[in-house]
C-alpha cells in the first residue's frame, strides 16, 4: 500500500488545507492525475499523484489543515493488493525537501509534549518566574526570536484580562524547568532554556490574506537561507550584442504570440551551463546531493508583493521557444496563484531576472535547499572594451550567489564563464 502524503512545495511550506478531493475511493489513478486541491501559502494548488493504482481510502476530510508529510490517502498499486510493506512512494522525495527544522516547528504547533528550546533574556525570565507566566506561550520579538521583558509584560497584561473570566491556572513551576543561570552572562544576552511544553490546543489563527501568506512564506524561506547558508557572490558582465541580435532576428520571423523575451534565453543558457558545471545543480541536505534533472525555478514577482517560484522542468532538454511557451503559460497562472504541485516542486536552482527598466544588478538569496541562485539585471547600453576596441553594447550583469558549504568561488566562476560562452553563441542554444 502506498501512502499519498501532503507534499512539500518548497522549504517554506509548513502545511496545507485540503479544499477538495478530485478523486474518491476506488478510483483508479495514474501518474500526473490531479488527486486534490490544496490551499497553501502559494495559493490553491492542484496536487498531482505520482503513483498508479486504486484509491483504497481517503484519510483526511475536505477542510482539514495538515502538516507536510501527513498521509492523505492510501493508494493500492495495481495487482499488488496484499502488499503490506509500507511504501512511501515518490512523494517522499519532496517531503524530504522539507527542512527538518520546519518539521519540528509544525509538531510544536500541534498537541505536543515535545521539548522545545526557547530564547529568553534573563530579566524577562526573572519577571516570568515571579509573575507565573508560561514562557512557552509567548512569541518573542527580540533578537533571534528571544522573549524580551516587554513580551513578558505584555503577556501579563493579556493574562490579567483573561483571568477576569477564567480561574485555576496551573502553577508555572511545573511547566518551566530552567537551566541554572550562568553567572558571567551579560544581563541583556538571550540564553537558551529547555522547557517541557505541556499539551496545548492549536490556536485558532486569523486566516491570512493571500498576500500575507505569500509574504510569510517568503520570509520563512529567506530567513532560513540567511541563517544557514554561507553565501559567496560572483558577478560577470556579459556582452549581449549577439544574443539581442539573434533574438531580434528570431522574433521577426515569429508570430507576435510566439515572440521571445531575453528571460527564455537566460533560462536556456543557465540550463546548458549547468550541464557543464553540474555541481551547482544540486541541493544541500546532509551534504551535497547532485541532481540529474535540471529543473530551473524562475522568480515571478506578484503585484501585491511577494514572489512565487514556478519551475521549468528539464530546461536543458527544451528549446528557447519551448521555454518561452512555458513562461507564457506559467507566469500568468503563478501571478493568479493557480499552479500545480509539479510546477512548484523539485527545482534544483533558481533564476531571478530583475527585468528591463529596473536595477542593473541583483544579488539573490539562495532558496534552500538549493545551492545557487543566478541573477540577471537590466540589459543596458554600456561602454564595453574588447580586443583593444571600445564600443557601446547591450550588456547584462549576471550574478551568482553560491552556497559556500557546497561549492567554491572557482566553481561559480566556471559556471559564469560557461554562461557567457553560450550567450555569445545564442544559435547554439
Amino acid at each position, binding site marked *: 500500500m502506498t501512502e499519498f502524503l501532503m507534499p512539500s512545495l518548497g522549504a517554506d511550506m509548513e502545511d496545507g488545507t485540503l479544499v477538495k478531493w478530485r478523486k474518491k475511493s476506488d478510483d483508479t489513478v495514474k501518474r500526473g492525475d490531479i488527486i486534490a486541491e490544496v490551499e497553501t501559502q502559494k495559493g490553491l494548488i492542484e496536487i498531482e499523484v505520482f503513483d498508479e493504482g486504486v484509491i483504497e481510502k481517503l484519510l483526511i476530510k475536505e477542510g482539514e489543515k495538515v502538516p507536510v508529510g501527513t498521509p492523505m490517502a492510501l493508494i493500492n498499486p495495481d495487482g499488488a493488493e496484499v502488499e503490506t510493506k509500507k511504501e512511501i512512494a515518490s512523494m517522499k522525495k519532496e517531503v524530504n525537501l522539507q527542512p527538518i527544522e520546519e518539521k519540528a516547528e509544525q509538531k510544536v504547533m500541534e498537541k505536543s509534549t515535545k521539548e522545545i528550546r526557547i530564547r529568553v533574556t534573563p530579566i524577562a525570565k526573572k519577571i516570568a518566574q515571579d509573575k507565573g507566566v508560561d514562557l512557552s506561550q509567548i512569541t518573542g520579538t527580540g533578537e533571534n526570536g528571544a522573549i524580551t521583558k516587554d513580551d513578558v509584560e505584555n503577556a501579563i497584561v493579556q493574562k490579567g484580562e483573561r483571568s477576569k473570566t477564567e480561574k485555576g491556572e496551573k502553577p508555572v513551576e511545573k511547566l518551566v524547568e530552567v537551566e541554572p543561570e550562568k553567572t558571567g552572562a551579560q544581563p541583556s544576552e538571550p540564553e537558551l532554556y529547555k522547557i517541557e511544553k505541556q499539551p496545548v490546543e492549536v490556536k485558532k489563527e486569523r486566516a491570512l490574506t493571500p498576500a500575507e501568506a505569500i509574504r510569510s512564506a517568503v520570509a520563512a524561506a529567506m530567513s532560513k537561507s540567511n541563517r544557514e547558508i554561507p553565501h559567496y557572490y560572483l558577478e560577470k558582465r556579459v556582452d549581449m550584442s549577439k544574443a539581442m541580435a539573434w533574438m531580434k532576428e528570431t522574433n*521577426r520571423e515569429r508570430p*507576435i*504570440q510566439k*515572440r521571445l*523575451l531575453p*528571460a527564455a534565453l537566460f533560462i536556456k543558457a543557465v540550463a546548458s551551463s549547468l550541464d557543464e558545471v553540474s555541481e551547482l545543480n544540486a541541493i544541500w541536505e546532509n551534504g551535497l546531493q547532485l541532481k540529474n534533472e535540471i529543473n530551473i525555478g524562475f522568480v515571478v514577482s506578484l*503585484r501585491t508583493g511577494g514572489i512565487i517560484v514556478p519551475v521549468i522542468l528539464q530546461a536543458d532538454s527544451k528549446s528557447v521557444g519551448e521555454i518561452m511557451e512555458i513562461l507564457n503559460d506559467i507566469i500568468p497562472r503563478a501571478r493568479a496563484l493557480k499552479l500545480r504541485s509539479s510546477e512548484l516542486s523539485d527545482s534544483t536552482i533558481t533564476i531571478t531576472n530583475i527585468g528591463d527598466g529596473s536595477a542593473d544588478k541583483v544579488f539573490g538569496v539562495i532558496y534552500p535547499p538549493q545551492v545557487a541562485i543566478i541573477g540577471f539585471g537590466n540589459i543596458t547600453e554600456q561602454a564595453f572594451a574588447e580586443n583593444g576596441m571600445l564600443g557601446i553594447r547591450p550588456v547584462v550583469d549576471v550574478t551568482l550567489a553560491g552556497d559556500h558549504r557546497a561549492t567554491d568561488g572557482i566553481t561559480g566562476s566556471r559556471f559564469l564563464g560557461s554562461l557567457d560562452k553560450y550567450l555569445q553563441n545564442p544559435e547554439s542554444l
Partner: protein
Amino acid sequence: MNEEEIKNIIFQLLKKIAPDTEPSALQPDENIREVLNIDSFDSLQFIVKLNEKLGIEIPEEDYGKIPTLKSLINYLLAKLKSQLS
C-alpha cells in the same frame, strides 16, 4: 475606430494586466510601464492582446516608439489608417 475607442481598449487591457491600478488616470505623457509597474513579460502580453483586439502587429523595433498613452494612441491610429488605405 476613433481615438476614444482605442483609448478605452487600452485601458481595458491594462486594467486586466494591472488590476490593482487605475489606467484611466494615466496622463498622456506619462510612461505607461513605469506608472503602472508593468514588467517586460506583461508588456509583451499587452502587445499580444492589442494585436488580437485591433489586428495591429507592433514589431519589436517599434516598442521604443510607444512608451506613453499619447504616443501609443497616435501610433495605433496611424497604423489603422495605413491599413485602411
